């Protein structure tokens, strides 16, 4: 007994002492920060394979291309610019570099397209006597169509808010949910809202995550189901208004609603952003955000670059508001709902 314990303690002591769980920190130099950023993305980013097929992204080529632009004599502004240029090769709105002086971003997925959303026009439809339920503004339009404006899923919406809003709009002929310019937020807010329009457990997509550092180390795809809310639900027709600035959680909302039979997407393509992001940090304290967990549609297709609407409509800009300009996307949705 004594011998067993002595041997065991000696063995465990040696193993424990010899096994420090640690990693080597990179130097806080421009080169060290460049290497750290490239490596973090190399090991954690989730769309390398997909984007290689879409537009030929090769992360090793990106390393070679930008490595020559980095040296230890550059200042922080120059380094920030090079690192942001490197990250923009990923063409991902979820990839950002945060420093105290700037916020590195890739926003071409919305900047290069028509905006298709005008807050002044929306205000004209909402008037001044609209109702507010947490993050939602809503009212009944003149032709008895319900209108809900939800510009950000960062703003929480509770079951009580949804009960009140849907009760108020109960007698409407149809409902417009305007999520244009909704850049995302909390996925559970999107789920809670979508749960009011589904009447049986419905497969709306798949999700997976990385299980290792390799570009193709992924878990199996897990089904994502929308569960019907046990509270008040909407059975009539719904139009969801989208534009290129519908991103991240709002993109997921559009993808999920697209699975439902009584829902029509109206407007422009969504912006995408289907990778749930995570953060890490560089030796100099800058924080990097990147897509980590890909979310797919119900057919296991990527929606990273957005989805197309059922009815494509652009805002016309040939007359101004004072001359009676109307929101063409809202008007198109109204026509669909009164048919």
């Amino acid at each position, binding site marked *: 007994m004594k011998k067993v*314990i002595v041997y*065991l*303690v000696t063995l*465990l*002591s040696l*193993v*424990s*002492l*010899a*096994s*420090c*769980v*640690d*990693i080597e*920190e*990179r130097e*806080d130099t421009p080169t060290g920060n460049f290497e*750290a950023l490239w490596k*973090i993305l190399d090991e*954690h980013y*989730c769309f390398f394979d997909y984007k290689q097929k879409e537009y030929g992204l090769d992360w090793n080529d990106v390393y070679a291309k930008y490595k020559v632009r980095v040296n230890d004599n550059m200042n922080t502004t120059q380094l920030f610019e090079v690192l942001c240029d490197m990250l923009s090769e990923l063409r991902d709105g979820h990839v950002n570099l945060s420093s105290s002086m700037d916020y590195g971003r890739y926003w071409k997925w919305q900047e290069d397209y028509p905006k298709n959303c005008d807050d002044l026009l929306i205000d004209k439809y909402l008037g001044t006597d609209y109702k507010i339920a947490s993050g939602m503004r809503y009212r009944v339009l003149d032709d008895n169509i319900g209108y809900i404006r939800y510009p950000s899923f960062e703003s929480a919406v509770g079951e009580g808010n949804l009960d009140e809003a849907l009760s108020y709009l109960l007698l409407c002929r149809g409902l417009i949910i305007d999520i244009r310019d909704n850049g995302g937020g909390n*996925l*559970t807010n999107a789920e809670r809202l979508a749960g009011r329009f589904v009447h049986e457990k419905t497969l709306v997509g798949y*999700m997976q*995550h*990385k*299980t*290792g*550092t390799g570009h193709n*180390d992924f*878990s199996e795809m*897990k089904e*994502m189901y929308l569960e019907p809310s046990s509270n008040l639900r909407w059975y009539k027709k719904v139009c969801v208004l989208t534009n290129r600035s519908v991103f991240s959680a709002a993109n997921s909302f559009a993808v999920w609603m697209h699975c439902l039979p009584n829902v029509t997407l109206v407007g422009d393509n969504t912006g995408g952003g289907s990778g*749930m*992001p*995570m*953060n*890490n*940090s560089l*030796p*100099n*304290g800058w*924080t990097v*955000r990147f897509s*980590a*967990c890909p979310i797919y549609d119900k057919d296991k297709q990527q929606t990273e670059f957005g989805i197309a609407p059922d009815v494509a409509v652009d805002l016309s800009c040939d007359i101004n508001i004072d001359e009676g300009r109307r929101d063409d996307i809202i008007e198109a949705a109204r026509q669909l709902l009164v048919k």
Partner: protein
Amino acid sequence: MMRINHIWLLAFSFWLLALPANSQEQTANSPKVITRSTMIGIGGTNILDTYLSDEHFKGTGISFLSTIERQKENCRWSTLMEHEANLSSCKSRNAQHELEGAYNFYWGKLYRWQLLDGALSLQAGGLVNASLGFIYNTSNGNNPAQARAHLNMMPTGVASYRFQLFNKQIVARYEVNLPLAGIQFSPNYGQSYYEIFSRGDYDHNVVPTTFVCAPEWRQQLTLDAAITRKITLRIGYLGNLQQSKVNNIRQHVWTHRFLIGITKRFSITPHGL
């Protein structure tokens, strides 16, 4: 092969913990001696969790440690129970901030040998360690925190030595706990907490561990000196190096604390009705 090793190690641990049952009957009516110490500590903390950041975070923390040892006279077996709670605030080399907190509960049995006419006491046995904790990174927006939980079997050794110094009775005590096997909670490498807790999609989130993938090392060295007839001062050091490498995530929380507290020793004599 790995699974067989885990089962063997767990079985051995339970055997270690089950040993005292044989000798309990003959000492059922012996007085029970209880040594209870309560200490607080302050010292350094070093945190690494690659799920949150590849940077190291260093800082200061405080700890509370309560140790209770129960032993019947004429019995070589004793029961040791410890509560350890700590809270730390740490910064990276570029002033990013992490908070860390944990509660550890230890319970187990120790077998005693008396040497040098009772001046030296050696104890060996095993403890079960249940731990709950968190690491919170204030810079991360999407993965701001890491939950920590594990259950470990820990072979344990204790050496106590009594001696006189300046006409005071001093007791020096050294305790070391090493990991053998256990289980630990961990998200998978790139798995989000949204998947685990909102969607219920689990993926190797309860991981078997051994001293190879979770090589922990906990030790404490204390000195007891009687201040009055009723109060004994205890000062010492507690080092708790908790670390793991599971699901491709490396994590360590190393805490070093200088402790101060009091110790009470009293006995309870059972009375038959």
